[in-house]
């Protein structure tokens, strides 16, 4: 088991280096001269030249990339914000907890609701309940989350006046944003759970379990769901990534002072190091989540466990 986890962590390193390279390139082709933008408008040519030298902008590209990676690995150095002149990582970390809270809330909502609805529609296949929940799921994946958020504001905050329009100062403020950003995930997880459960439910061992006279509840939870879980876990992991990306939109709709809204504001202010730094930070978080998902796999899927417990990996 430790071998599997160790291998998975090692495999992550080249991928993360690749992600850093992509972001480095995007940073490099972003318009404007960083030294000029950092020095401010009234800066003399000499000051700009000095800053260029200090930032290493005159070094060859591979040296710059090497230093960029070194900065990230040794001190999470993502550059300096053009706007506030503070390190990007400090600005991002100030706001990250809010985004993490939103993402966590949404993934919990969408997993619980999604799996429940998925099981119900699989068990009651082709009944009216199934049609309604698959219909909702299809509409859910079709709605752009930012617009759905606006519709929820219009209904619950403006028309019914039940919930605040924006901000998360009180707990009621979290309801609409969490629901908005969980919607797509909820729909996707419902669809995945339904099809995965349907596939499992017609397997021979389910028939056997029924023949043994086990109760329907035990069959569904212990026999079917456990075996249907692997594709569902994959989707949940992917959805968390989508939610981190979607946070950018949800936060700007609800004016939540998190990472996403900050990134959108920075796009408008042309503060590129912040935008790219935010992308990098969220991508790293996403990779870590996927690592976690793979480790959970190993516990859920006995096939992976057996591959490694025999001391050698099978050829497939």
């Amino acid at each position, binding site marked *: 088991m430790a071998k599997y986890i160790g291998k998975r962590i090692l495999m992550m390193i080249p991928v993360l280096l690749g992600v850093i390279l*992509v972001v480095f390139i995007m940073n490099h082709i972003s318009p404007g001269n960083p030294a000029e933008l950092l020095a401010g408008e009234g800066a003399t040519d000499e000051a700009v030249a000095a800053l260029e030298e200090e930032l290493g902008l005159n070094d060859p590209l591979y040296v710059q990339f090497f230093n960029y990676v070194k900065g990230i690995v040794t001190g999470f150095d993502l550059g300096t914000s053009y706007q506030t002149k503070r390190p990007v990582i400090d600005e991002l970390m100030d706001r990250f907890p809010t985004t993490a809270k939103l993402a966590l809330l949404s993934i919990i909502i969408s997993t619980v609701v999604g799996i429940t609805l998925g099981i119900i529609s699989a068990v009651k296949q082709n009944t009216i309940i199934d049609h309604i929940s698959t219909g909702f799921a*299809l509409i859910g994946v079709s709605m752009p989350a930012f617009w759905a958020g606006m519709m929820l504001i219009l209904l619950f905050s403006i028309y019914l006046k039940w919930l605040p329009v924006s901000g998360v100062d009180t707990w009621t403020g979290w309801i609409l944003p969490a629901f908005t950003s969980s919607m797509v995930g909820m729909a996707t997880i419902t669809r995945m759970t339904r099809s995965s459960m349907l596939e499992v439910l017609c397997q021979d061992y389910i028939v056997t379990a029924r023949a043994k006279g086990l109760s329907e509840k035990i069959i569904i939870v212990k026999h079917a769901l456990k075996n249907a879980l692997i594709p569902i876990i994959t989707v949940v992991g992917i959805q968390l990534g989508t939610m981190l990306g979607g946070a950018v939109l949800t936060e700007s709709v609800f004016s939540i002072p998190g990472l996403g809204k900050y990134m959108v504001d920075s796009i408008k202010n042309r503060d590129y190091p912040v935008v790219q730094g935010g992308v990098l930070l969220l991508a790293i978080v*996403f990779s870590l989540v996927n690592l976690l998902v793979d480790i959970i796999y190993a516990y859920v899927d006995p096939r992976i466990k057996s591959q490694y417990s025999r001391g050698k990996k099978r050829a497939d």
Partner: protein
Amino acid sequence: MHTEAMERLNKKKKNKSQDKAVGVWAEVAYRLSRNRAAVFGLVIILILVLFALFPQAFAGYGYDDQDYSRIFIAPCAEHPMGTDDLGRDIFSRVVYGTRISLSVGLISMLCSLLLGGLLGSLSAVNGGVSDNVIMRICDVFMSIPGTLLAISICAALGTGMTNLIIAITIALVPSFSRTVRAAILTVKDQEYIEAARAIGASKARLILRHMFPNALGPIIVRATLDVAGGITTAAALSFIGLGVAPPTPEWGCMLTQAKQYITSLDKWYIVVFPGVMIMITVFALNLFGDGLRDAFDPRSKN
């Protein structure tokens, strides 16, 4: 003698493969036509395509016809979706917007089909080192959530429709390559591929003539769903100020401008209709894509 025999063989093979191809397609079309949801989706898509091709025929006004004496008119007979803050007819703008959204979705899908198809088939056919290299590069791009990757690229390249298409294409390519690779791997070791290779078919011919047509099902399904994904991403990017800039009637872009009026309930139509259009379009494409999936692989429908 030799060439004659080969020619006859080729002819025979061609006929045979054509017969088979027609058979498969006819069957898929039949199954699709029996699926009411998919047909419904297709009808909506065709209407939207008409909107995109001939917006003048449907829109009563130009997309940028401003009339300051007629701002914020609620939906009525003359303005079915009302007018916006500059007195522009929202229905006309939404109709013109169809052209932009559909073309962004379609072009980025075609680009990613081309690129992803090339990378995926190279990866599947060659295997070994090139497979490993291509798939690891895909891993890198896939570990950045799609929306974020598109944001990063758009922020670096700047706004505009071309850059938007580039960004969406790059975000779509990695998973597309994987789909193509998986689809080709399932047909790669079939006997008819071996037979074609045995009579000396070139690699390009093997891929284009033998593997691609037989692996087409999942690729078409993926492509349909990717058009939907492309449209949503384009709207999202325009919404946060990347992508298409005003006064272009892109749906996401219209929503950005509408957002400031969200607190006034009487101006609901500004916020509602552009989003409804996005939803209808994506919904129709999803219905059709799901229908295609079931038609290509009846087993997948439980």
